[in-house]
């Protein structure tokens, strides 16, 4: 086993990987930019090396500096987390060339599955189901228009190197095509340095359901069941769960087996995810493969009782997989909410800044994978993900109730978060019944988002509290310059109570 691992990432995922390392008795090395000197991952690591200025292109994406830090520290392996260099085959190759173990699949598997069009071609060759569309990159607008007519509208333009909703355009008719093609190409060029675009049929109200796979370096590969990820805002996942309320055992087994076949086809090892779209007729189509750990991995961990990061490290160290397919059994239900620094009341505007107060939920069935602390300033340069909040309970209704309780306990003050938005989603009848698709949240938000009107009781209390604060000031008591906490503990539960309470 490795003695020291460098984590080439930041924030909550860096901390999550370091926790796994510490539990395995492996020393950890952090890298950090100017913006992250005080960050938790730097303080949690055994060692820490500075790799550049705040923009990620000058730090977390600098392969040369990260490899130099690995050499200086004597690390034997590098865990890339997700995002940044995690799906960069060049980085994986550079690690291996320097004698460093890249904790992920082979560069060959990454290259094969990293290009959406190459992956589509391989799958079509093997007779596996893909969303109807082109299996090659489209260079000219003329070609795009011709192919679009063949496939029919509505359709999706997609970046071949894409991910995370970038370089993605839905086109309803030919009139929208040219402008969508230009902006998608330019976004793809900016985000991935590769303007290649392909076309997929747009499925009506599909579900996004993905399958976790895990393979060792000795040819043994299994699937770890599904995650339901249809709750997306602008093509970005915001709530994930497992099991999917949409699948029955037969479809689950079919999708799992298909995912494992795809993994084997790619000669895949380590943890990976095969994403599918499932249409209203319960037919599923390969969408893309993510050749890395995913943000939503904890829901699988909660339901199956595995630790995917520890398994990744073991696999990278050459150990054989310690699970057989028949040992994989789902128990209960898990949900994840991605807590972002953004303002749901103002069109989800990013809300970086100083965290003045923080209280995290705890108690039974709750996991908070966070990268923040009271006094931390969320930098503007990176992803606004603050924490992954994960709950487990015996079944879906109870897991939903537990998630509501956890969100009500979660207090972040000083910056805005999407917690109030999640509380709204969790009380929506279609979410509760499991009747939703990838467009659910965007439709929900068509008229914007406003917090519920407050109750008369709370208003009375607000007036009294302000008067207390004023009264204390008039007594010339010392007053703090800024409050340290805001209270989010009771939110929805309290609102219900007030509606019921006799006056």
């Amino acid at each position, binding site marked *: 086993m490795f003695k020291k691992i460098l984590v080439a990432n930041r924030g909550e995922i860096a901390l999550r990987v370091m926790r796994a390392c510490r539990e395995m008795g492996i020393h950890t090395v952090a890298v950090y930019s100017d913006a992250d000197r005080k960050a938790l991952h730097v303080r949690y690591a055994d060692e820490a090396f500075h790799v550049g200025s705040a923009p990620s292109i000058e730090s977390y994406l600098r392969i040369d500096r990260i490899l130099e830090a690995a050499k200086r520290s004597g690390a034997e392996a590098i865990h890339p987390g997700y995002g940044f260099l995690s799906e960069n085959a060049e980085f994986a190759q550079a690690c291996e060339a320097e004698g460093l173990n890249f904790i992920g699949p082979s560069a060959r598997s990454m290259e094969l599955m990293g290009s959406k069009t190459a992956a589509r071609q391989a799958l079509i060759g093997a007779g596996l189901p893909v969303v109807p569309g082109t299996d090659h990159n489209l260079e000219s607008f003329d070609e795009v228009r011709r192919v679009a007519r063949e496939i029919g509208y509505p359709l999706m333009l997609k970046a071949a190197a894409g991910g995370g909703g970038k370089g993605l355009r839905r086109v309803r008719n030919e009139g929208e095509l040219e402008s969508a093609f230009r902006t998608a190409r330019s976004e793809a060029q900016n985000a991935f340095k590769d303007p290649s675009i392909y076309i997929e049929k747009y499925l009506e109200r599909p579900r996004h359901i993905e399958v976790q796979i895990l393979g060792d370096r000795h040819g043994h590969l299994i699937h770890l069941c599904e995650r339901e990820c249809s709750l997306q805002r602008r093509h970005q996942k915001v709530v994930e769960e497992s099991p999917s309320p949409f699948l029955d055992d037969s479809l689950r087994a079919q999708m799992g087996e298909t995912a494992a076949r795809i993994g084997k086809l790619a000669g895949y090892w380590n943890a990976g995810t095969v994403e599918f779209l499932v249409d209203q007729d319960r037919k599923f189509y390969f969408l893309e493969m993510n050749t890395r750990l995913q943000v939503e991995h904890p829901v699988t961990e909660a339901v199956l009782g595995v630790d995917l990061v520890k398994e990744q490290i073991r696999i990278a160290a050459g150990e054989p997989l310690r699970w057989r397919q028949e040992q994989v059994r789902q128990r209960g239900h898990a949900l994840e909410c991605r807590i972002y620094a953004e303002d749901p009341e103002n069109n989800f*505007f990013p809300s970086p800044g100083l965290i003045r107060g923080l209280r995290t939920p705890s108690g039974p069935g709750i996991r908070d994978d966070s990268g923040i602390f009271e006094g931390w300033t969320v930098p503007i340069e990176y992803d606004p993900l603050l924490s992954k909040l994960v709950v487990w309970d015996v079944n879906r209704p109870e897991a939903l109730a537990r998630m509501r309780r956890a969100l009500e306990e979660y207090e972040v003050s000083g910056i805005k978060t999407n917690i109030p938005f999640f509380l709204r989603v969790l009380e929506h009848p279609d979410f509760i019944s499991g009747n939703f698709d990838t467009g659910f949240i965007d439709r929900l938000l068509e008229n914007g988002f406003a917090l519920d009107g407050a109750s008369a009781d*709370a208003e009375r209390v607000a007036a009294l509290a*302000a008067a207390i604060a*004023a009264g204390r*000031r008039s007594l010339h008591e010392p007053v703090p310059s800024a*409050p340290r906490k805001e209270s*989010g503990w009771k939110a929805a539960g309290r609102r219900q109570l007030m509606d019921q309470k006799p006056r």
Partner: protein
Amino acid sequence: MKFHVKTRSGSRQSEHTLDLAARELASTDRTRLPYILDGETGEFDWVEVAPDVYSLILDGVSYEVAIRKAGNPAQPNGFYEVSVDAQVFFVELQDPRRRRPGEASHAQDRPQEILAPMPGRIVKILTAEGASVRQGQGLLVIEAMKMQNEVRAPRPGRVEKIYAQEGQGVENSAKLLRLA
């Protein structure tokens, strides 16, 4: 201590008169405080559990409240942001002796500078100098963290001056426009 109180939460607004026995407030221990709200007498239990965070018990119901003072932090009257069990209220306290009946709050009449909520680039300006805007109406669009975001009017008013230009990069808290 007597107050004229205005509260706002979302679209809900209301006004109250409040008289609070302030003499008990000097103690940081638990205190029962009598009050008269809109002529109705009551009493509640109050304690500070963290700086500017109070626990209140009214008629047996337990509330957790956080306070933030806008403007001069030492001045008793003025604007407070009060969160009660995660519901946010804007509360304005006025000294009733200095207030003439029917007088409107001055706050809305004073011109207000709209500042950039974060560093970014001005993508689009959605209004023009001299235009009247509703509360919540979009004023301009900033791009930041690779996302486009609308800056909206915090209150109704008239756009007196626009400082920002389309395509321009702005620092955090840069003046964008003035609302009269």
